């Protein structure tokens, strides 16, 4: 029997089952203690019966795993490793974005922000955090470039689609930007996996008022568990500019925005309206801080969904409220009052890509005879496409030194030749550089 893991590791609080907390032991090996001696059955007590057999299933016997436990293991994100050497890595601070010398160096994510980023589900299992004592990352040139514009006083919203090869560090760069945003007091909204909204794993509903399809429970969960929790301080400081009726309740002008979001968001039926209202408040309220709205696996918003309408026709992804709201922000039709950052990060691990989206990323138009989806192309027009490149020698050197210091790379000195070799073998992709330091068994 595999060891039982502490249930606190279950990522989503909604999924966390209410179970007696198992006794925490230092060792996770299951104990083999001799039980109480079995009472010997009295002579003749066991009688052979020829009648119908009773259901002899032992009620007290449980399965190997409790409900939700396996899912907990599967989705658990490990951000530390006790075997790794703990290092005094400098923390990632907001002022670094303006220090040119910081580029190419390694910084650790501060503890508070790590908790918030966990809540935002910004860390992924596929990232190799479990090999290191604490999550740290190399500050890339692209992050510096975006970070330097984050402090501008202009209410400008940068609208970026971030593309790059698998393992090039797109999601880690988003993590760094989110960290900066959280440190600067921005409001951070994140859709951690666009795939969840298109593959039919969550409920959907038609909203006649807006003419869009909605994801009621997903939106509700997103509002209450992610947006309200991570941005509690910022939202509490904002008060409603207008009186609004969300669901059954009416929220008067002057009420803290947090109250409206967390209470109205709990209602599935009112969740999408609440999100729309939240965005409109962020557009109209002059006191609103800057906003970072990010979507991971953005290419999944461009492929046909598996949802069907009453005529059994496939619903276009842009007919859903969440993708279309994000696209409006990406196109610049909606603008945050004090600016911010709207970012769609593509994924190459989750492969399906639409032809129109590929053309858009390459900056090409759809040909007159092409069958590519023009709606996709039009829906993104105006967004800036940024390509995540491979690491340069300096960045690779600090990553390799980190791997050496933490004990992954067993060399004494990170020499020029070693850096060149690793760069060539990994094509500069940071994920591959780490992989080439230690043969990692996937689990």
């Amino acid at each position, binding site marked *: 029997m595999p060891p039982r893991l502490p249930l606190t590791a279950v990522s989503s609080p909604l999924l966390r089952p209410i179970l007696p907390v198992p006794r925490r032991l230092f060792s996770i090996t299951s104990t083999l203690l001799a039980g109480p001696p079995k009472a010997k059955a009295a002579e003749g007590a066991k009688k052979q019966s020829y009648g119908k057999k009773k259901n002899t299933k032992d009620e007290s016997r449980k399965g190997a795993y409790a409900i939700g436990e396996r899912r907990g293991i599967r989705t658990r994100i490990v951000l530390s490793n006790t075997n790794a050497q703990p290092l005094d890595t400098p923390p990632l601070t907001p002022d670094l974005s303006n220090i040119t010398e910081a580029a190419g160096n390694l910084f650790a994510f501060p503890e508070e922000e790590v908790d918030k980023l966990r809540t935002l589900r910004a860390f992924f299992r596929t990232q190799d955090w479990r090999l290191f004592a604490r999550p740290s990352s190399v500050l890339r040139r692209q992050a510096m470039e975006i970070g330097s514009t984050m402090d501008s006083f202009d209410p400008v919203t940068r609208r970026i689609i971030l593309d790059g090869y698998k393992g090039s560090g797109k999601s880690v760069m988003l993590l760094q930007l989110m960290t900066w945003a959280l440190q600067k007091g921005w409001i951070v909204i994140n859709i951690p996996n666009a795939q969840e909204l298109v593959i039919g794993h969550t409920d959907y509903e038609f909203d006649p008022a807006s003419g869009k399809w909605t994801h009621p429970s997903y939106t509700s969960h997103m509002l209450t568990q992610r947006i309200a929790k991570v941005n509690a301080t910022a939202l509490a400081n904002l008060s409603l500019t207008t009186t609004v009726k969300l669901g059954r309740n009416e929220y008067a002008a002057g009420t803290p925005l947090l109250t409206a979001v967390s209470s109205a968001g709990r209602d599935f039926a009112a969740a999408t309206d609440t999100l729309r209202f939240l965005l409109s408040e962020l557009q109209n309220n002059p006191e609103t801080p800057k906003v970072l709205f990010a979507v991971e696996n953005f290419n999944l918003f461009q492929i046909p969904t598996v949802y069907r309408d009453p005529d059994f026709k496939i619903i276009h992804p842009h007919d859903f409220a969440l993708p279309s709201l994000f696209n409006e922000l990406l196109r610049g039709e909606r603008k945050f009052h004090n600016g911010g950052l709207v970012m769609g990060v593509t994924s190459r691990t989750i492969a399906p890509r639409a032809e129109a989206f590929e053309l858009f990323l390459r900056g090409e138009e759809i040909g007159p005879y092409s069958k590519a989806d023009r709606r996709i192309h039009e829906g993104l027009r105006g967004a800036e496409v940024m390509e995540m490149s491979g690491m340069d020698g300096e960045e690779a050197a600090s990553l390799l030194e980190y791997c050496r210091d933490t004990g992954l790379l067993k060399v004494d000195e990170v020499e020029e030749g070693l850096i060149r070799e690793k760069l060539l*073998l990994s094509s500069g*992709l940071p994920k591959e550089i780490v992989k080439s330091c230690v043969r990692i068994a996937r689990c």
Partner: protein
Amino acid sequence: MVAGLVSLRHCCRTILGEAFNTRVALPRASFPHPRPLAGARSFTISHVQQARSILDDEGEVNDDWILKTGTGTSGQGPVNIADELTEEDITPTWAEQQFAVRRVPVSASYFTGNATFVDNLLALRALQRKYELLPTIPKDQVPPVKWKTLVEYNALAGKSVSASKFKQLTNILDRLNIIEPTLMPQDVQDVLAWYKRDTQGAVSTQKERTVDEFGRGYGLGRRKTSVARVYVLEGDGQVYINGKTLAEHFERLHDRESAIWPLLVTDRIDKYNVWATVDGGGKTGQAEALTLGVARALMVHEPALKPALRRAGCVTRDHRMVERKKPGHVKARKMPTWVKR
């Protein structure tokens, strides 16, 4: 060369004349494994030759009997046997009484089955042993030479020789051929000339490969069903395969290492750029086809790297292909499960 037999008694009579009419003991000289006989005399081929020359003069021997002796001819001169005969020797044996004429083979290798070949091989071995200590030149500086083919040799030998046996000959010839040309002995030269193919003009010399006008060295590599066409040019360590970077084309680290292995082992990763197209087969086959292609293209730039690349296993084409499926088998070797009727 035809192995022939000559009547030994006839020969002896010719040599010894009247003395032979007295009872002369003739020891057997043609045992497969010669065993020493007490006080016995052995007859050598020179005796036969001597006898033949005498017979030729008298015209008593038919031309059909003329034989060409092998290269193993002994240099011993004739011996006057009658002087040394003892009383015991001249006692006739049972065999002699049975057969008036006893035929013995010319070559000591007669009972090996292919006397010509064995004679030739022994002669070459002797030659090799004789000149073993002469200085040699490196193999790549030896002028290319083509020996007689197996078919040509068989026609001369009159009997078929297996390819592996013939290889024994050519191996020795190759060894003799690398003797320093200025010190090459005349007898070796003669032997080599005899074994050389008549049409030496057909010897194909390997075309010298050079970098093209753009400074690219080209190499073609194959493995299983994959074909890699590789251009290597001086640069700073960029690799593009089918227009993609190395990590984009090969997901496995091991395949990436295989593809640029020639550059890694020779420590040339930052000296050259690689631009390659590869198609056919699977990823591993493609990676190993690239190994060969990159190595060949690299050798265009630096031919001196060949020994190092050979040690790294980058020079030889791996000729193994998938084993064919056989009828009655599920795959090449797998058999269907036995089913009881």
